[in-house]
């Protein structure tokens, strides 16, 4: 059997105590765990062998969701993906978020995994998400225990892929995240949480805990999330496209944000594509131009499911399809 490595399990009663317990240990020796759906498989494969686990699962301070599209939403990081995806205010006011949370993994894992955990999801790679023995057989990799990136052997950085479904949507919705650490609380735009580096992919101290997500009001926003994966039932995304836009009565796009998942080590905001939409009506020409612009910065590498060339091509296709859908236009049959 694939068993967990031994550790000591600490059960703080408050968030403050949880931060203290994490801060008492050197980085890597204590890790926070909520749903465990990302961390425990990684621990079984010996990607992580912390001496201490600090359990966040039962902290009531992380378990809330309030607000609506008019006031904005505040989501406790400990809310499960099932709770987020089925919450009436999320479904009504933030349908793309409900969709994305509902497309993560499987029903069982959504009952366990949390929205905070999905935002902090470890980056993924074919050469990394393998058992210890498999990784040992190839001499390990740059992300863990080795010194070569097998995706790009000449590279000095790790190219593991940001694979969260909720992150692109929350980026497109301009969400902010709040972290609690030994120095106190800080709030930052979600985009600032991420770094395009497969190893150090989060701008978060080891004793900092993501406590809540704040999503601005979204009344009148059109939004969608489209996920590309091999199986309809469950898989990590090989591409995620999130779009949020506002159209004036005459059809002019007054606000647009596009975010892509699974094309880099961080979820990416496609700012150039968004700029092409802003101030324009969403005609087929404008949509195609924006899709082409979103396609350019996407640089998938050969380290997830499906082929690299196909994944890159699909960025353009899925961005265009999503924009046609949000504009209320039929996409061309060739798309």
């Amino acid at each position, binding site marked *: *059997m*694939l*068993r*967990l*490595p*031994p*550790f*000591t*399990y600490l*059960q703080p009663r408050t968030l403050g105590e949880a931060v203290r317990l994490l801060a008492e240990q050197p980085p890597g020796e204590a890790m926070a765990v909520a749903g*465990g*759906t990302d961390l*425990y*498989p990684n621990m*079984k*494969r010996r990607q992580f062998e912390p001496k201490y686990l600090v*359990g966040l*699962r*039962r902290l009531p301070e992380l378990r809330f969701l309030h607000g609506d599209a008019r006031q904005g939403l505040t989501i406790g990081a400990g809310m499960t993906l*099932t709770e987020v995806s089925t919450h009436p205010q999320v479904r009504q006011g933030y349908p793309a978020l409900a969709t994305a949370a509902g497309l993560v*993994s*499987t*029903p*069982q*894992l959504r*009952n*366990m995994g949390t929205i905070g955990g999905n935002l902090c999801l470890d980056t993924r790679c074919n050469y990394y998400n393998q058992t210890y023995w498999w990784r040992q057989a190839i001499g390990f990799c740059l992300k863990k225990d080795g010194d070569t990136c097998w995706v790009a052997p000449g590279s000095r950085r790790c190219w593991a892929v940001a694979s969260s479904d909720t992150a692109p949507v929350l980026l497109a919705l301009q969400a902010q995240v709040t972290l609690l650490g030994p120095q106190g609380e800080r709030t930052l735009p979600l985009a600032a949480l991420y770094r395009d580096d497969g190893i150090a992919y989060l701008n978060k101290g080891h004793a900092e805990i993501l406590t809540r997500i704040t999503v601005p009001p979204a009344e009148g926003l059109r939004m969608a999330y489209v996920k590309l994966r091999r199986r309809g*039932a*469950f898989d990590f995304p090989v591409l995620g496209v999130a779009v949020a836009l506002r159209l004036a009565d005459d059809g002019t796009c007054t606000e647009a944000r596009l975010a892509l998942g699974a094309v880099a080590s961080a979820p990416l905001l496609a700012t150039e594509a968004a700029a092409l939409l802003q101030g324009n009506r969403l005609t087929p020409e404008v949509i195609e131009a924006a899709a082409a612009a979103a396609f350019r910065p996407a640089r998938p590498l050969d380290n997830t499911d499906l082929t690299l060339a196909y994944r890159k091509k699909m960025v353009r296709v899925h961005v265009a399809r999503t924009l046609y859908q949000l504009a209320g236009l039929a996409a061309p049959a060739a798309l």
Partner: protein
Amino acid sequence: MKTVVRLRVNGDEVEVWVPVHKTLLEVLREDLQLTGTKHGCELGECGTCTVLLDGQPVLSCLVLPIEVQGQEIVTIEGVAAGSELHALQAAFAELGAAQCGYCTPGMILTALALLRTNPAPTRQEVKEALAGNLCRCTGYLKILDAVARAAASLKDGSSYGG
């Protein structure tokens, strides 16, 4: 680190003295001899170790017993009433929805949670609910049929529904 864990499994209070890093799956099978819960991938991908936690399907290979003390755990052993099979078990048997049988406990528990919240699911809803349970024999059609039959027999009151 060994610890005492108090669990509520199939309505019984049990106390086990186990290493804290043993998963619920391992404790159910190795310490409580409840081997109806199967171990498959042990990485959260296959669904065969599904148990119900406060009525919701979860994967016991990724749950630590210490995290679920005080919560209600139901395994496949807790589904029948003595010798009387639950409607789902009867339907799986009648329709041959179990081939090798390895995924069956997880399938039945996941379907049980579905029927409790949605007594008359559409075929699509059954598919979505069972999306996390892999059948290595690929006998999905009989499984979907069995869930539909169980839902119908529960509705007309002709079989035991827990």
